[in-house]
């Protein structure tokens, strides 16, 4: 019920992000969404892309510090308040969101997030009929 996300450790030095993006470009891997959070010394670049497993191998072999993680992707109607409704469900069940980002894809809102308790999050998603995006569906939306 999850999709793969690349988490890339980016040193706070010029050129490190470009290196990662170029490697993906060379392999014709398409970015669907990405986000960088930073501290003073380093950042974590999180990437949703086509063919995440191949992307992981490419980066790994090029010596990039990368890990492949599983995150939830929930599809929402592109209307005000939809994100609030979804998050409220998790908050009500005492699940903390470790991080979250969102983007629009073909007129649909997509919420990507990771929680502190994946199992319980999966139960809540099923119980509340939230619309999950699967990995194969993600590339189809492109």
């Amino acid at each position: 019920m999850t999709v793969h996300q690349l988490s890339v450790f980016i040193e706070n030095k010029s050129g490190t992000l470009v290196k990662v993006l170029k490697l993906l470009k060379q392999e014709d891997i398409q970015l669907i969404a990405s986000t960088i959070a930073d501290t003073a010394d380093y950042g974590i670049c999180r990437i949703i892309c086509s063919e995440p497993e191949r992307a992981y191998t490419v980066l790994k072999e090029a010596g990039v510090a990368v890990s492949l993680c599983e995150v939830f992707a929930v599809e929402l109607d592109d209307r005000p308040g939809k994100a609030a409704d979804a998050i409220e469900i998790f908050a009500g069940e005492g699940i903390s969101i470790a991080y979250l980002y969102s983007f629009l894809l073909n007129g649909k809102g997509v919420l990507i997030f990771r929680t502190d308790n994946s199992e319980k999050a999966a139960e809540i998603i099923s119980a509340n009929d939230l619309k999950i995006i699967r990995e194969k569906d993600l590339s189809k939306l492109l």
Partner: protein
Amino acid sequence: MSYSKFYNPEECLSRSEIEALQLERLQATVKHCMNSPFYKERFRSIGLSPSDIRTLDDLRKIPFTTKQDLRDTYPFGIASVPLEKCVRLHSSSGTTGNPTVILHTQKDLDQWANAVARCLWMVGCRPEDVFQNSSGYGMFTGGLGFQYGAEKVGMLTVPAAAGNTLRQIKFFTDFGTTVVHAIPSYAARIYEVMCEKGIDPRRDTKLRTLVIGAEPHSEDTRKRIENMLGVKAYNSFGMSEMCGPGVAFECLEQNGMHIWEDYYIVEIVDPDTLEPVPEGEVGELVLTTINREAMPLLRYRTRDLTRILPGECPCGRHHRRLDRMKGRSDDMIILKGVNIFPIQIETILMQFQELASDYLITLDTQEDNDVMIVDVEMKDLHIDDYTKLQALSREITRQLRDEILVTPKVRLVPKNSLPKSEGKAVRVKDLRKKY
């Protein structure tokens, strides 16, 4: 009140008088060392007898003593007196391997205090002065060493100890402190805080003299600190194996540190061949204590690189002058007056499963403050989790601090991102402004 320029008559000895006194004290010391199980065995093993030391040059027949010898005989194996005659011990901080221990009898403490008092008197300290010691106390010899010396001069002595800068400044103004002992980077920090609080050292304090040392610093740094605080700053040299502070000190000329040759015999040797270098050239400082009872050390290799300044000092003292320390003949790092070996850092880092094996220690000067940055390569774990990454760097920082007693800045870096040279990793990069 008018005082003599000199604290001890020994300061004014001529070269020949110094050398005669040295030979007399060396012979007595060597004889006394036969009470030490360590030296007794060492002399026996090479067939050397105390009576073979007939001239100062005969000193070279005696093998060197090293830090490793101190560790191997930990804690009391080199002592030349029974333990019940000792009244104090000081010890190095390191927890990697055995620390080094130096024992003192009451006479040793008195002689040490006298040497420190002589140094302070030489830079103009008098009983009317108020002396504030911003050095760490406890095992660190810069605390008690200066305390006893300053009290011996007769100064009102404030054992302020290290840290708490606001309180240090309050003491300056409340107690009328005229003389401060601090490491150079801390002196700069004190000035910074004074500026923040709107305190002008020239207007609001009576500071006149600053005693610095224990931390490598350049002539420029000295000048800058003098200008900041409106003081004269005098460099000093000491090490716990040689009691602590008071081994060598600048006089009012501020040109080289007089080493007290009635306390120590000085040799400068090539660290590779261990042969003496020509007069005036840089080599490793080797010292023999000739005025110590509990634990004399013969030909102790300090690992500090320096040279003897040629020529006479206009101050009238014939005790020769050491140049500023030029570095080390081993990999020891001196940061904020604390001695650190890279192996101590490596030992801590290797205990973290999350880390790969490469690391880089960078020493740098940031806003007049010497800092240590430790870059550590991570294995590819926890990359998605800031909380864990931050907890990891916090834990590394904490453990390093407990070991090396200064707080480094720990940076997590990706695997294989640190520079390597000829297959061997570069471990220490020193970018500080010094020497």
